[in-house]
C-alpha cells in the first residue's frame, strides 16, 4: 500500500520540479538539490503516515466485523432483502399512520392499529400520536437548551482567562465543564430513570448537563477572543467586575452566544430523539418500537416526520444565525463537538 501511494505522489510532484538542473548556476543547483531532498523526506513521511492509517483502518474494520453479530458480507444480501420486504401495503398507509386514520388493512393487530394512540384535546379534535411524540421530543430539546445555555452563560465568564486570570477559579470551572461534557448522557438518563421512573425529565436533565459543558466551552472561547478595550474603559471609570462583564463583554459576545445556542438547539433535537430511544420517551422510543416490530408504515411515517422537522429546524436556525452574525454562522463542527 505504501509504495503505491508513494508512486502516485511522485508522479504528481514530477510536474512541478521539472526544471532541468543543468541550466542552473552552482548556487541554484545546490538549492534545487536541497529542495529535492526535502521533498523526498516529506514524501516518505506522507507515505508512512498513509500506510499506518491504512493498517489501522483495516485492522479496525476486521475487528469490527469480528465483533459484530452478523458478518458484513454475509449480511449484505439480507440488508437488501430487508429493504425490499420492508415496504408498507400501500403508500397511503404512511399517511394514515402519520395522521392516525383508520386503516383498511386493520386486523386487530398493533401493526395497523393507528387510531388507538390518538391524543384527544376536545371531543372531536385530536393530535396524532407521532406529532404528539415529536412535540415532546422538540420540547425536551428546547427546555434543555434554554436551561443549559443559561447556566453555561453564567459559568463561561469564570472560565475566561481575560476576566478571572489563570488561577484556580478558571481551572475548576473548566474541569467541571469538561466532566459535564464528557459524561455519558445515557448514564445520567439511566440513573434518573431509576429514581424518577420513565419520563422526559431524565432526558431533559441528561441533555442539559451535556449542553452546559459543550456550550460553556464555546462560550468562554468567544469571551476570550473579545475586544478588551471597552473593559479597559469601564475599569478606568471604576466599574465593578459585574458591571464590566455586563457592559463591556456581554454586548460583544451576545450575537455569537445566541448563534451557538441555536446550533446547540439543532444538535439537542437529535440528541433528544436518541435519548428518547434509550428510555426518555418521545419520538425516538416510538421509532425504535416501530422498526423493531416491523411496522413499515409507521416507521416510514416517523422517518418522514423526523426528516421534515429536522430540516425545518436547521433552516430556521441557520436563517436566524445568518441574520444575527452574518457569514461566520457556519461552524458546524465546533457546535457539534
Amino acid at each position, binding site marked *: 500500500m505504501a509504495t503505491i501511494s508513494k508512486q502516485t505522489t511522485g508522479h504528481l510532484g514530477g510536474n512541478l520540479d521539472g526544471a532541468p538542473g543543468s541550466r542552473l548556476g552552482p548556487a541554484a543547483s545546490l538549492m534545487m538539490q536541497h529542495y529535492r531532498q526535502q521533498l523526498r523526506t516529506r514524501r516518505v513521511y506522507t507515505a508512512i503516515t498513509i500506510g499506518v492509517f491504512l493498517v489501522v483502518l483495516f485492522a*479496525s474494520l476486521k475487528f*469490527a466485523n469480528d465483533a459484530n453479530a452478523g458478518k*458484513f458480507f454475509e449480511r449484505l444480501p439480507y440488508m437488501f432483502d430487508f429493504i425490499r420486504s420492508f415496504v408498507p401495503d400501500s403508500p397511503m398507509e404512511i399517511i394514515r399512520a402519520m395522521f392516525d386514520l383508520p386503516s383498511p388493512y386493520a386486523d386487530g393487530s398493533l401493526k395497523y392499529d393507528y387510531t388507538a394512540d390518538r391524543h384527544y384535546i376536545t371531543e372531536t379534535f385530536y393530535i396524532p400520536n407521532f406529532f404528539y411524540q415529536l412535540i415532546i421530543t422538540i420540547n425536551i430539546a428546547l427546555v434543555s437548551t434554554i436551561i443549559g445555555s443559561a447556566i453555561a452563560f453564567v459559568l463561561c465568564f469564570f472560565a475566561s482567562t481575560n476576566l478571572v486570570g489563570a488561577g484556580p477559579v478558571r481551572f475548576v470551572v473548566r474541569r467541571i465543564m469538561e466532566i459535564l461534557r*464528557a459524561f455519558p448522557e*445515557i448514564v445520567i438518563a439511566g440513573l434518573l430513570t*431509576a*429514581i424518577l421512573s420513565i419520563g422526559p425529565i431524565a432526558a431533559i436533565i441528561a441533555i442539559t448537563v451535556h449542553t452546559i459543558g459543550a456550550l460553556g466551552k464555546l462560550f468562554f472561547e468567544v469571551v476570550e477572543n473579545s475586544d478588551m478595550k471597552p473593559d479597559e474603559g469601564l475599569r478606568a471609570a471604576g466599574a465593578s467586575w459585574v458591571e464590566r462583564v455586563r457592559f463591556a463583554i456581554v454586548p460583544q459576545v451576545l450575537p455569537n452566544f445566541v448563534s451557538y445556542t441555536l446550533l446547540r438547539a439543532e444538535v439537542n433535537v*437529535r440528541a433528544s430523539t436518541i435519548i428518547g430511544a434509550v428510555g426518555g420517551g418521545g419520538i425516538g422510543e416510538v421509532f425504535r418500537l416501530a*422498526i423493531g416490530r416491523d411496522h413499515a408504515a409507521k416507521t416510514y411515517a416517523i422517518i418522514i416526520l423526523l426528516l421534515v422537522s*429536522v430540516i425545518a429546524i436547521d433552516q430556521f436556525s441557520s436563517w436566524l444565525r445568518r441574520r444575527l452574525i452574518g457569514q461566520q454562522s457556519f461552524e458546524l463542527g465546533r457546535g457539534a463537538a
Partner: protein
Amino acid sequence: MPSVPAINASDRERLRETYPQVFHRSFLQRYGLLIGSGLILAYLVACFFAFNVGPAFRNGQWDRASLYLQDWYSWRAQPRLRFQDDGTVKPQWSSRGQYAEGSDISWLKPTEGGGYRVTYGSEADRLDVTPGRVDVYLNGTVYPVTIDSNAATAPADAPSALRQDGAKVLVDYGFEGQAEIRPAQVYVQRRFLGWANFLFDTKSAFWGKSWGELAHLATIGERLDPARSNIGHMRDDFLGNNVWQHADILSKLLQTLVMAFVGTLLGTLFAFPLAFIAARNITRNRAANWGMKRLFDFLRSVDMLIWALFFTRSFGPGPIPGIAAIFFTDAGALGKVYSEAVENVDDKQREGVKSVGAPSVIVNRFGVVPQVLPVFISQSLYFWESNTRSATVIGAVGAGGIGLKLLEAMGTNADWDKVAYMVLLILIVVFLFDNVSNAIRSRLIGGPTH
C-alpha cells in the same frame, strides 16, 4: 462619591441631538430583552407543568438514589446469618459473594457459643448473633433483641437507629451498613469504600493479597503456576475476572472507539472528493452542485438514530451498524462543511497553476487542496471527538459497544460500581482524545489550545 460632571441644559440638548441612537431607542430595543426573557420564563413554567416535573420529583425514590450513588464508590457484603436447628448460626452468601470459601473475615467472626459477631467499624457498634437473641451494640450501649419462632422484638427503650417493623427489627449503622433481624435469620449488609475484588475474583490465586505481596509475586516471587510467569498469570486472572469482566468491558470500549474512528475516517474519505463536486467554483455544473448538496443535506438530516436502528436491523448488533450510522451522518455533515471551505478558497493559486497548462486534477491538487487541507483535518478532528461521545449513545440503542454494556449494567440496578468503572474509562478516553486532537489541530492551524 467622586465629583459628577455637571451638565447644563444646552449641553444636554446637544448630546441628545448628537447621539439619538442612545437616547431614543425603539420600543423593541428597550423592552425586547425583557419581553423575550418573560416569554422564555413563561414557556419554562408551562413545560414544568406539562412534563409533571413537580409530582415526578415528589414521587421520586430518593432513598434509592442515595443507595445507588453510594454503590458508585463503595460495595456491600450481604451475608445472611441463618439460625440452624442445632442452636448455631450459619452464614450464607449469595452467588455474588465477595469472599472466597472459608476465608477469614475480620468483621464477621464466630463466637464460642456457635453464634457470630458482626462489627460495624468498631467494637462499640456490633451485633452479637445467637439463635435466641441478638445483642445490638449502638455506640457502646447494648440493646438485646429477643427472637422467638414468630417475631424478633426490639427492647422498649430502643433509639431511632433500632426500629421494630412488623415481625422484623431493623438496625441502621449509617454508611457502615444495616441489619435486618428476622425470626429465622439476620440479614446483614456491610458497606466498604472502594470496589470489591476489582483486580482479581475469589477464584484467582492472587485474591486477597496485599499490594506488597502482589508486587513481590510480580517481580521476584516464586511462580504460582509453573507453566507461566506470575505477571502473565496476573494478567490472565485480571482480564478473566468474573465479577468485573475486564476483558469484555475493554473490548466493548475498543468497539466504541473503532466505531467513532472508522465512521469518521470513512466519512472524511467519502466527503473529500464529493465536496469538490458540490463546490460551485470547482465544478461548473449547477445540476451537479445542487444534487450533491441535497445529498449531503439528506444524509445529515436523517437522524443518526434512524441510521443506527436501520443498520442494526440489517447487520445485527455490533460495531458495523455504529460505523455505518456515523459514516452516513458524518458524510453529509462533513460534505457540507468541506464544500463551504472549498467555495471560500483564494482563486489566485488555482489561476497560477492553471496558467502553466496543468490539467484540472493538478489544478485542484496544488491550487485548492493545500489551502483547505488544514481546515478539512481540523473539522474531521472535531467530528471524531464528538463521535467518540455519540458512539456511546448509539451503542445503547443497539449498535453494541460500551453503550449497550452500560445500559445492561444499569438495567439490573445492582451494578452501579461497574457503571462507575465504565464511566471512568469513557472519561479518560474522551480526555485523552480531546487533548490529542487539540494538539494536532493547533499544530495544523495554529491558534490557542484549550
